[in-house]
């Protein structure tokens, strides 16, 4: 048996990597990918805990999460395409209308 902690630690590392990706990269699509990475790391943690507690609810939760994530990616990419088609760039820093 691999201790649950290892899985959770791995999930933590992947999550941190995802966060760094969101904050550091300027290509909008890579940012989006990093977000997916974060989602996945969370899913991993939940499945690890579900396994430790032998609770099926955890796996079902992850199932739903994956489905919703798929839908979200679809809509998100549609939005991204709309925004960046007009601007002819994929740099998130160009979206700065909120600049005060």
């Amino acid at each position, binding site marked *: 048996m*691999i201790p*649950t*902690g*290892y899985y*959770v*630690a*791995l999930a*933590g*590392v*992947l999550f*941190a*990597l*995802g*966060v*760094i*990706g969101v*904050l*550091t990269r*300027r*290509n*909008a*699509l*890579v940012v989006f*990918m*990093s977000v*997916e*990475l974060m989602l*996945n790391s969370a899913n*991993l943690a939940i*499945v*690890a805990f*579900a*396994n*430790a*507690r*032998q*609770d*099926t609810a955890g*796996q*079902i939760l*992850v*199932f*739903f999460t*994956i*489905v*919703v*994530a*798929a*839908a*979200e*990616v*679809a*809509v998100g990419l*549609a*939005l*991204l*395409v*709309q925004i960046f088609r007009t601007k002819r760039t*994929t*740099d998130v820093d160009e979206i700065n209308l909120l600049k005060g």
Partner: protein
Amino acid sequence: MELVLFAITALVAIVGAVAMLLSSNAIHSALFLLLNFCAIAVLYLLLNAPFLFAIQLIIYAGAIIVLFLFAVMLLGAERAEDERDTIAWQRPVALVMGLILAAQVAYVVLTGTPAPAGGQDAAFGAPERIARELFTTYLLPFEVTAMLILAALVGVVVLHIREKRQVS
């Protein structure tokens, strides 16, 4: 034995993630992400979740990565970003914060009390078990999720409708 498998898979996952971050070409990033997803799927298998293993591969590795690739190609986004960073302190602070976060998680994992262990269940993770739960206890979320997908579908279509007047 399991430990070795876990170690290799974990390593692959991390390498994939790091490579995704560091690669300058967006297509390469997507493919590295695919690698990462596959590694995670294997980890699900190790965690007695064969159903999720399959779902992960089908949806994430199969559909989502494809969507990403399509989007990248549609926008022509594979080229690198220019070096100049608009906010100087963004990168360093982000790295530091990320490391701190990872350290915090590690700390909690190592020093925290472990979750209470459930009993040994031979049929845990089996598809029948999941199917039964899904269609009885969690039927409502199931149906709602279906509607959610429908909504997403309609939304995406609406986002791309062009007015008749505009030159398409």
